[in-house]
């Protein structure tokens, strides 16, 4: 097979539509007679609901309907547990999920109390102000540790305390090895909250066709098929009566994979009123009503030999779940598993407690718990290197798993319920390449001393990480050669900017010998393809990509078989190229694929028994386990000691996600991930007060890095194929974002290494940072003083 497209940096098939504003997003959907929904949300984080009076709101001209929890009847059930916890001995998990509208009690700011449906969004929002809610504020808890205190306000009163889950996993015996350690380093690490802040907020349009008894829903979901299944189950409809379309979406990043209250309310109201209904989340709602991520507190210890070899790691952490836990334990399990990184860690004790707080629900967001694990591990190694007088690069290299160690079983359970087994990896070359690209030796030996002598605070960082990607269970694809000669590909995953329309097309185009622009990919429309699970965990290219590959392979087989019959030659003498199948060496003796497709679908006459019509095949791919990608990020920063502003001077990424389908798209994934990572570690932080009020719910105060804040990135790739899928690919979606916190901490600490803080130097054990926080950390005397 010629690989004309696979591995090539070709431009994206979808871009002309996106760049010209011709792509369909949910808010572009307009239906005749469409109504608009607005949601009344709680201003309190914790409150008893005594009553809701919507009388005045109902009388406002233009208001069509108002629904409170009472009006929903049986619909108002707690939502589903989307991801059940894996089978781990002794695991404790209390499922508490949100109802579409709150009953009796409010547990977080922004929880929905009622909805207004009106002729316009303006009127709907006016009517929200007419609704009188009798709420009795309760003492709220924002802090994870306070939430576990014996006298803490109880968030779910039927539980004994605010513990949502507790999990212990162990490999080897840390306790036994601890005695033999030459060096023990113990630290507390804190990672605070952020939000994905996708460019497009959530949105839903639902249209119920009464005559056809068919529900059509446009939804900004990453998981259109599960949403379709959930809606059918909720409304007692056959799955074929419900169509969910996830059109172009302005960023997913994880939070769009839930089953949110609005996703039930909008379709249900459309069915009640028999009119189309639209709800578009505004930015302010997004800060409260779309899930968050990141807050954890770790107490971690590493045990090493005097030559810097890791004997074991002991980590106990808290994970903030917010008010509910609909997504199970994916985040903290990722933390547990990703902490191990590329290192050979023979003994590992890891324990976490998930805590309910009166804050927005926490679910996976790009990195999904992995950042925290990498932060803890990399920081421990940095401190160990200092303690042992070892170079930062050297201590990492000494502890890497070697190519002979794969597959490597870490013996603890990963988010896909199976033991964490790394499929393949070759870590040392990535580290060496990154160090070479950024000029690590020269910087620390020559440039840094020179610049320090000039009074400049410059520092370098270099960190490594692995990313579990491409988990199951499965995805599918249908590949069809159209009579026009174009090829249609349908798959169930949703798309939010990843480049699916191009990479899937590349895989198929190579197998069928057609131009890549002639391959038309449809994603995320349940009427076009209705099996699958969704886009998450850096799995699109791995799982759906290999399903496309399998389906295209099956179509190729059909083409060769039919063409062989038609042309009366052996299949092995046929070539597929330029949209034709022809006899090798005799290009004029062949058939255009479109004509062959037409011939494969006879309208009269007879076919052989068992013949399938057309040149079409549907295939599924389910990997036995995930594929482990890895990488190294390196950075040079300068800190202005007067203002504590940080300037990123160089940023290097060396990444290994197996075989690369499209280097251009991969670069984009890395760039976007790093940009988001920089936001997460230096600009973005959700700040709550002690009554769990979010203090910065707008882009004026929640700072997203802009183009001027994101440095030019230098990237390179190493290809260690995954043995677990025919394409040899691994996921790349989260790689850019994962190690940025660890990198920032190391580089800034290196830059400010000379600052004497009363006999000790700066130790950064928290994320995110900010100029203000760096000032506080370096001016302990100024803390508390104004």
């Amino acid at each position, binding site marked *: 097979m010629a690989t004309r497209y696979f591995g090539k940096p070709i431009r994206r098939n979808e871009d002309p539509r996106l760049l010209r504003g011709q792509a369909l997003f949910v808010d572009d959907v307009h239906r005749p007679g469409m109504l608009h929904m607005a949601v009344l949300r709680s201003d309190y984080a914790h409150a008893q609901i005594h009553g809701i009076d919507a009388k005045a709101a109902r009388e406002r001209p233009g208001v069509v309907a108002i629904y409170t929890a009472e009006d929903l009847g049986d619909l108002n059930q707690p939502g589903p547990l989307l991801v059940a916890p894996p089978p781990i001995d002794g695991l404790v998990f209390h499922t508490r999920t949100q109802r579409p509208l709150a009953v009796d009690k409010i547990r977080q700011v922004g929880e929905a109390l009622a909805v207004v449906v009106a002729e316009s969004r*303006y009127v709907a929002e006016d009517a929200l102000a007419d609704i009188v809610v009798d709420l009795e504020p309760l003492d709220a808890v924002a802090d994870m540790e306070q939430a576990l205190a014996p006298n803490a306000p109880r968030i779910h009163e039927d539980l004994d305390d605010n513990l949502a889950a507790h999990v212990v996993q162990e490999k080897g015996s840390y306790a036994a090895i601890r005695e033999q350690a030459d060096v023990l380093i113990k630290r507390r690490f804190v990672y605070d909250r952020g939000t994905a802040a996708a460019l497009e907020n959530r949105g839903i349009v639902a249209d119920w066709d009464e005559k056809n008894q068919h529900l059509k829903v446009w939804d900004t979901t990453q998981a259109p098929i599960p949403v379709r299944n959930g809606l059918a189950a909720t409304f007692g409809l056959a799955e074929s009566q419900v169509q969910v379309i996830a059109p172009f979406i302005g960023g997913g990043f994880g939070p769009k994979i839930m089953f949110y209250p609005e996703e039930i309310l909008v379709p249900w109201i459309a069915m009640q009123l028999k009119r189309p209904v639209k709800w578009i989340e505004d930015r302010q709602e997004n800060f409260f009503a779309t899930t968050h991520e990141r807050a954890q507190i770790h107490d971690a210890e590493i045990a090493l030999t005097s030559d810097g070899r890791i004997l074991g790691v002991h980590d106990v952490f808290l994970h903030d779940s917010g008010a509910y836990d609909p997504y199970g334990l994916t985040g903290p399990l990722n933390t547990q598993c990703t902490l191990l990184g590329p290192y050979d860690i023979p003994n590992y004790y890891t324990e976490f407690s998930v805590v309910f707080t009166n804050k927005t629900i926490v679910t996976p967001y790009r990195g999904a718990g992995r950042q925290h694990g990498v932060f803890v591990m990399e920081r421990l190694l940095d401190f160990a290197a200092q303690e042992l007088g070892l170079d930062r690069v050297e201590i990492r290299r000494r502890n890497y798993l070697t190519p002979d160690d794969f597959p490597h079983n870490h013996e603890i359970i990963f988010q896909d319920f199976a033991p964490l087994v790394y499929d393949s990896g070759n870590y040392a070359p990535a580290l060496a390449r990154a160090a070479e690209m950024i000029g690590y030796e020269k910087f620390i030996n020559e440039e840094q001393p020179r610049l320090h002598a000039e009074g400049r605070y410059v520092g370098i960082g270099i960190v490594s990480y692995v990313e579990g990607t491409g988990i199951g269970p499965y995805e599918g694809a249908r590949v069809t050669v159209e009579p026009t000669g174009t090829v249609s590909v349908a798959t169930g995953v949703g798309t939010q900017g990843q480049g699916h329309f191009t990479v899937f097309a590349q895989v198929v185009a190579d197998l069928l010998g057609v131009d890549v622009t002639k391959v038309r990919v449809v994603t995320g429309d349940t009427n076009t393809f209705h099996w699958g699970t969704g886009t998450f965990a850096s799995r699109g290219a791995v799982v759906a990509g290999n399903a496309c590959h399998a389906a295209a392979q099956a179509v190729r087989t059909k083409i060769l078989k039919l063409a062989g019959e038609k042309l009366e030659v052996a299949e092995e003498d046929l070539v597929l190229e330029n949209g034709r199948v022809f006899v090798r060496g005799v290009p004029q003796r062949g058939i255009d694929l479109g004509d062959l497709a037409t011939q494969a679908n006879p309208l009269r006459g007879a076919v052989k028994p068992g013949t399938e019509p057309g040149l079409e095949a549907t295939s599924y791919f389910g990997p036995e386990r995930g594929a482990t990608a890895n990488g190294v990020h390196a950075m040079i920063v300068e800190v202005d000691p007067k203002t504590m502003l940080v300037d990123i001077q160089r940023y290097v990424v060396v990444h290994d996600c197996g075989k690369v389908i499209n280097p251009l798209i991969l670069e984009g994934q890395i760039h976007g991930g790093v940009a988001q990572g920089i936001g997460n570690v230096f600009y973005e932080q959700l700040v709550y007060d002690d009554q769990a009020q979010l203090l910065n719910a707008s882009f004026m105060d929640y700072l997203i*890095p802009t183009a001027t804040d994101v440095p030019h990135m230098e990237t390179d790739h190493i290809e260690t194929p995954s043995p677990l899928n025919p394409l040899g690919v691994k996921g790349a979606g989260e790689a850019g974002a994962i190690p940025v916190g660890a990198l920032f901490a190391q580089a800034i600490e290196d830059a400010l290494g000379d600052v004497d803080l009363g006999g000790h130097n700066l130790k950064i054990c928290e994320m995110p940072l900010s100029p203000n926080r760096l000032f506080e950390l370096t001016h302990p005397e100024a803390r508390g003083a104004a």
Partner: protein
Amino acid sequence: MKPPPFDYHAPETTAEALTLLAKYGYDASILAGGQSLVPTMNFRLAQPTVLIDINRIPDLAFIRSAEDGGLHIGAMTRHRSAELSPLVAEHAPLLHETMPFIAHPPIRNRGTLGGSIAHADPAAELPAVMLALNAQFRLQSQRGERWIAARDFFIGLFATAREPDELLTEIALAPLLPRTGCAFREVARRHGDYALVGAAAVVALDAQGRCEHARLTLLSVGEGPVDVHAVYHLLSEEMPSADVLRAASEAAARDIDPPADIHASAAYRRHLTRVLSEDVLTRATARARGSH
């Protein structure tokens, strides 16, 4: 994030605008560039029942030099026009230096000088710059017109001396003294953000190089633009040596009562005030020495 209903008027002359202001006064908001007002309306933080849009009044946008070397700027002059104006560059170098710090080009294309001044955001650049330059503002109403100095105009948090029936129509800047230097600097989380702290300095030297006039104003450290009076007293008739300027900067940091918020503690703001004050006073002095 949709505003509640409001009545909308778009007068085409100043006289019409003043009639509407006389009629609706307290219930009305004046829509100039809308870069602050419209978001606050969408957040329903501002709920004016009447909006008077003065964008169609052509004679409110102008930049003219006065015979005495001063400058007259119409209130509806867009930020971008002031930023690119050679007259502003020549006659009001402090304003010229400050303009690029104000938000981003798309916002400066719409935002107006009068709007920023009348809005009186304590974190905005223009009130502090106007204070540093002793600007005079022309307020017109059906009752007549008056001129008011910047120091009397800014009276608190988003509060000015403008009466509800008055329209800010013009800004007058007096000519700078000979041997005057100016400088502006701010620290913001991202370029274009509201500053954590900003500082503007104007220093005029006499023929012997002693300080004849000095002004240091700050933004984001109080309820409005802050005029650091101590600087004038410390510098007056002194040779502005590095030590004197440092002492003045320390006085500035000491004399303020900065707020704390999620982006900056009071201690950090105080620290930045010292750093930025020293920077702008030093640069302004150097420029004053370099000018003739």
